């Protein structure tokens, strides 16, 4: 026990010295760690935030059992420490690589608290003063020490918030995510709107197979399956075994096992059985030009899988491959939608379809996201 204690504490100190100026904020929790022997079980210190075992997916915070009874006063201390830490960031991340600023981090902190608290507890208790509420205990889904560690990871290591809590809210879904799986982006939500628009005006497309290539967390596949509303099937593929596991878990959570099938493999390889039969093909493939990878925002560059980001020299490798595949995979009248890096790539794809696949597609166009960037290319197979 004693060893664990000093080890755990030392580990944190080492990290902290690496991040100048934070040590003043860290002091109270360290003190607390030392002085609270009951909090030092190995499960608390090393379980929940350790890297996932390769065999299974990581259970996101909000789905865990609220079994860590914690005095509200301790939680309040943690929260005020974490708020100060977030405030100390100011706009330094924003300036350096367009990362989160204090206000964004503070909001994330509230969400972290929301996810960590047992469901029936109102998170506003964090602001309630008075002896009665402070002496009260609430159940957390992870130990308070883990919360300290998680928040240090968020600020110091720039570990993405979604990996910290193990989930991403996307459309009306809550998808589990973990290291090794791309965190679905808000922009990508629009692909589901595009799918919904298309099937509402072309009901025939509701039937039959849809494919989401490079599914990652399964976001587009699950969103599409729900848009299909009980008709049709979605096949989701991914090269990464972690992604396959996470996507399968998410599919299960939404009770779509009978509708979405997750297959491991590269792009069209696992789809030989449905060649020429696809009613729709949707994908958010890696499209960042290789040269941009080193300069990415820390949350992305340091933590998210390169496999899901790097699109080759001009970022077009996979997009063109998908375009090409779409020509042979889609049935007549089949729809496809791809996410791209923006206007330049979208235009290149439209040109490519015009030149290399003349007469293969119709109604090809670039569609903007909510920021006005021409983010998507959609077309139909002739």
């Amino acid at each position: 026990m004693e060893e664990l204690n000093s080890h755990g504490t030392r580990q944190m100190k080492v990290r902290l010295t690496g991040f100048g100026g934070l040590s003043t904020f860290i002091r109270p929790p360290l003190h607390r760690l030392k002085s609270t022997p009951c909090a030092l079980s190995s499960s608390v210190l090393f379980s929940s935030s350790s890297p996932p075992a390769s065999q299974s997916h990581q259970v996101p915070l909000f789905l865990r059992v609220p079994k860590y009874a914690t005095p509200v006063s301790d939680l309040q201390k943690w929260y005020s420490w974490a708020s100060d830490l977030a405030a100390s960031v100011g706009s330094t991340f924003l300036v350096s690589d367009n990362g989160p600023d204090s206000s964004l981090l503070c909001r994330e902190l509230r969400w972290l608290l929301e996810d960590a608290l047992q469901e029936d507890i109102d998170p506003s208790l964090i602001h309630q003063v008075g002896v009665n509420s402070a002496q009260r205990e609430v159940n957390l889904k992870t130990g308070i020490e883990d919360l300290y560690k998680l928040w240090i990871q968020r600020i110091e290591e720039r570990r993405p918030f979604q990996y910290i809590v193990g989930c991403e809210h996307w459309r009306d879904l809550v998808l589990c995510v973990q290291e090794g799986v791309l965190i679905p982006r808000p922009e990508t939500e629009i692909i589901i709107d595009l799918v919904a628009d298309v099937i509402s005006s072309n009901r025939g497309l509701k039937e039959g197979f849809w494919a989401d290539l490079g599914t990652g967390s399964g976001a587009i596949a699950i969103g599409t399956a729900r848009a299909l509303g009980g008709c049709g099937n979605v096949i989701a593929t991914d090269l990464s075994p972690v992604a396959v596991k996470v996507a399968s878990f998410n599919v299960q959570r939404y009770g779509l096992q009978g509708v979405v099938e997750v297959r491991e493999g590269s792009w069209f390889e696992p789809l030989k059985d449905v060649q020429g039969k696809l009613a729709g093909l949707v994908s958010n493939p890696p499209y960042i030009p290789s040269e941009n990878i080193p300069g990415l925002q820390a949350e992305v560059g340091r933590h998210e899988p390169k496999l899901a980001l790097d699109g080759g020299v001009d970022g077009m490798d996979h997009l063109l491959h998908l375009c090409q595949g779409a020509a042979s995979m889609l049935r007549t009248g089949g729809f496809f939608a791809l996410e791209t890096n923006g206007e330049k790539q979208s235009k290149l794809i439209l040109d490519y379809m015009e030149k290399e696949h003349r007469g293969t597609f119709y109604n090809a166009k670039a569609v903007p996201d909510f920021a006005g960037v021409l983010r998507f290319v959609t077309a139909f197979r002739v």
Partner: protein
Amino acid sequence: MLLRRSRSVSSLQTNVVRPLFSSSSEPQTTLPSSSLGSACPVEDSSTTGSSSCSPGILNSPHGSCRKSALQKSLFLASAHDFAKNSCWGSPSTLSSVAWRTHDFGGLRLLGTQAAVEASTSDGLTVDRILSNQWPILDENESDWKSHATAISQSINLIKRRLQWKKLLVRLQLLSAQLEKPDIWDDPAHAGRISREQGSLMSKMKQVVAFERELLEHIDMIKLAREENDSDLELDSLNALLRMRRISKEKELEALLAGEQDSCSCYIEVQAGAGGTESMDWAAMVMQMYRLWAQGRGYGITVVDEMLGDVAGIKRATIKVDGEYAFGYAKSEVGVHRLVRISPFDSNKRRHTSFAAVAVIPITGDGSTHVQINESDLRIDRFRAGGAGGQHVNTTESAVRIVHIPTGITVTCQNERSQHQNKASAMAVLQSRLDQLEKARQTQMNMEHTQSLTDNSWGNQIRSYVMHPYRMVKDLRTNFEVSNPDSVLNGDIDGFIMSYLSASVDKDGDSQ
């Protein structure tokens, strides 16, 4: 007597009426009109009693009613009386459909009936009770005159707050409109008229029923004395005591008789000019409402929140869910002023800051539901920067929706997905457009007296002074409290009630 009570309850137009005196959201039971002729009074009374958990006429003393021969005879007498001389007794008035289709003569009578004062068997009316100027003793004194006087005072106050005469005139006007054969050619218009008519009708009936109940209990006491039935006398006296207690709640609830008062609402707070100090003030104001709403048991959801750079908020919107949230919170609309030594001023100077508060009802009943045209909207990703897409990991998915025809702009950034932010922003936009439409209708409809300019954005309504003295004062009512801390901790009901009574009672007096 029992029959009469159950009728007044059962004849509400339940699909559209929010019971004025009920804090329960349970739907009321509508009894078929045919059950009235043969209905067993005890059964009726239990049905109505269980249809609402609120105090008031619904939980009348008759749950514990003794079925003495005396009472039975009294019941029969009054039921007979009732059927003979009033439209209340006409079964067809009990169905809203019947109202619309043929029994309009009865309906007009109903209005007149309410105007005619109810009285006891020996001619005692509410006004006469009051003119007797019996002393009002403590509740614990078993004196029926004292109870009756207190209840009568409440009834008068409630009538004033409901703008009783105006209400009856309006009710007749609406009923007349509903009689027109072509009214349903414009179903939306007819729906509005019918809803308003139903709502006014139920308010009117509840007051009338309350008044009748009072007089019946007085009759009962007199009768009990004649018959030397001390049990019955005690029962009736207790019934009066219960009414007396309930009447205080009814007085308050009568303040919230507006069509939208029972709705949930959004509360928006925006910091005035003045940087960090006023952003901190805006946050304090918002916190005051959160604590107030919490204390009332309302649900609170943060819809939008723009934090200040150093402290506080630039603006924020919360959704307050619960009955009468709008009715109460609407009193807070306007500019709130703070005077204090700013903690953000190193020279410890006194600062004056402002925060503006807007309150928007969430009607949701479709009464003023503006159809939003997708093509009138411009939706953008708010605060999106850089290349976006895979380049960026952010939990920021704020959406800004601009309604081009009106220029109304709504942002929502507190949901965890863009989709939810959009949905949430759309809900706020819907409510704002509904409010705008409502305001337009109100302006067109001169029958409505509440003027929007009283409440408009930009009017300073309250001053919170921390230094050199400590006081919170409402500039509209002059209501003041010398402890700003308790007010900022959400204790604002005093301000709300005094404003509501001042505005409602003033209107009532001017009739």
